[in-house]
């Protein structure tokens, strides 16, 4: 089915994406409005508009995170490129030594050199996400993290399917878990 695009009846600037049907003394009035104009008239549309903004923001953040993690270590793609004068704040190990030996200095080096290591690790293992066993002390935390990842994937799915009620639920759940995460 093809719906002919209509310009917003109120501002005439943007395309109408919302159809509001009002019944005034038995008569049916149909209005084709853009999201902004609709939210001025209907409290429900206002809520939807805010939700859409929230979701956009969350999605943008999600995408930014993932893009960032892929794009950032471009520096390591060409080893001849600029020298990286980074030194581990815990053990004093210089990043340049890693490039020569492929050994790191201590467990904190993985945090400090994170963005320069990601590409190498992806090359070695084909991925950068641990799925195996977790030591006792980290079990609660990792379980939470893994739940969060699943919820974020579900959220993207819900938005794609325009299931906004489900998306809002997921958004609230992610926020509450994220808050718990940062408290730890």
């Amino acid at each position: 089915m093809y719906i002919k695009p209509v310009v917003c009846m109120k501002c005439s600037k943007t395309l109408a994406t919302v159809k509001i049907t009002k019944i005034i003394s038995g008569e049916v009035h149909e209005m084709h409005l853009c999201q902004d104009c609709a939210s001025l008239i209907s409290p429900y549309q206002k809520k939807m508009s805010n939700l859409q903004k929230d979701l956009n923001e969350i999605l943008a953040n999600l995408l930014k995170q993932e893009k960032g993690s892929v794009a950032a270590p471009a520096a390591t793609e060409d080893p001849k490129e600029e020298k990286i004068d980074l030194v581990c704040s815990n053990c004093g190990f210089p990043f340049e030594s890693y490039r020569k030996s492929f050994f790191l200095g201590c467990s904190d080096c993985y945090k400090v050199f994170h963005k320069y290591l990601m590409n190498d690790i992806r090359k070695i293992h084909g991925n950068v996400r641990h799925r195996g066993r977790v030591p006792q002390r980290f079990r609660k935390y990792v379980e939470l993290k893994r739940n969060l990842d699943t919820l974020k994937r579900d959220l993207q799915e819900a938005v794609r399917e325009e299931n906004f009620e489900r998306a809002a639920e997921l958004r609230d759940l992610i926020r509450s878990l994220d808050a718990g995460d940062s408290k730890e």
Partner: protein
Amino acid sequence: MREDIPEKYRQSDDWLDETGPDQHVVVSSRARLARNLSKIPFATHARKEELEEVAKIVQKTIKNLPTISLFNSIDLHEISALERRYLKESHIISAEMEKGDIHRIVYVRPDYRISIMVNEEDHLRIQGIVSGFRLSEVFQDILNIDMELMDTLPTAFSDQYGYLTACPTNLGTGLRVSVMLHLPGLALTRKIEDMVQMIQPSGVTVRGFYGENSEYFGDFFQISNEISLGKTEEEIVNLLLSVIRSIIEREEKARETLFLDRVASIEDTIWRAYGLLSQARLIDTQEAMKLLSRIRLGIDRGYFKTLDHARLSRLMIGIQPAHLEYHEKCDPDSEARDVSRAALLRNIFTMPGSTN
């Protein structure tokens, strides 16, 4: 002969005596977990005091653990170079530990099937070895040790990369499972290359008898997983199980073909090996391994009634240089060893009843 071995190494090769499944192709199954303590520099870059700190933390922890406190500890810096080489030949320690640098310790279960190396390239390497095709069993063994030991230590771990290791190639599970295969059928029919090409895309590596950088000899190959991050431990073990299963089938088929199409020539190589082993006066390790490999194929075909796979596996370790020096008390120069090796082998292969 065995009275000469110092008490502490008496049973270091006993794991070879057990018969395991698929022993006609699979010599042994091994597994190891790489673990580190958080914040303390990895052993590759740690200072003496830091290595000592690691050794002390581990020692103190182990003392209170129900199973591991029964392990024997060996300070590799304290024992002789010969003893270290002996332990390496028995697959109890790695080449890195054989150097015997200060604060390098190994904890060994009294039956020598499990050892914990302290200050290898990682702070801790938990490894297990059993004869035959028993990967799941040996993995479960070291996992139990890992749970007992690491849950009480400040483990280096991140939710993204898993267990953090000195070299990024071991990240994630820190798990390496490997299997030693004897593949004379594929070697004699020139199908080793095909086999390597077939299995490599599934994420496994092929190495020689003593692991990394060691050469191939006597048609023995070590196959292990390449990737340790992004898969669960069970997935890694299952990958190896299915790859090895397919190699065993190929090897069996190759042996069938050999004994159907080229029976005269294959029998000839086996009996020539027997001839050399029962008569030679000088044999170096490589030649001996090559000949024993032919004998092993003969055992599978029922040619040597008094020998079995376990006995032969033990012999393959027994003819290694440090084992010879220990057991046969020969001089440490290479000719004396070759003489002694030839004598040991003659003794076994000219025994009445060693053939049918």
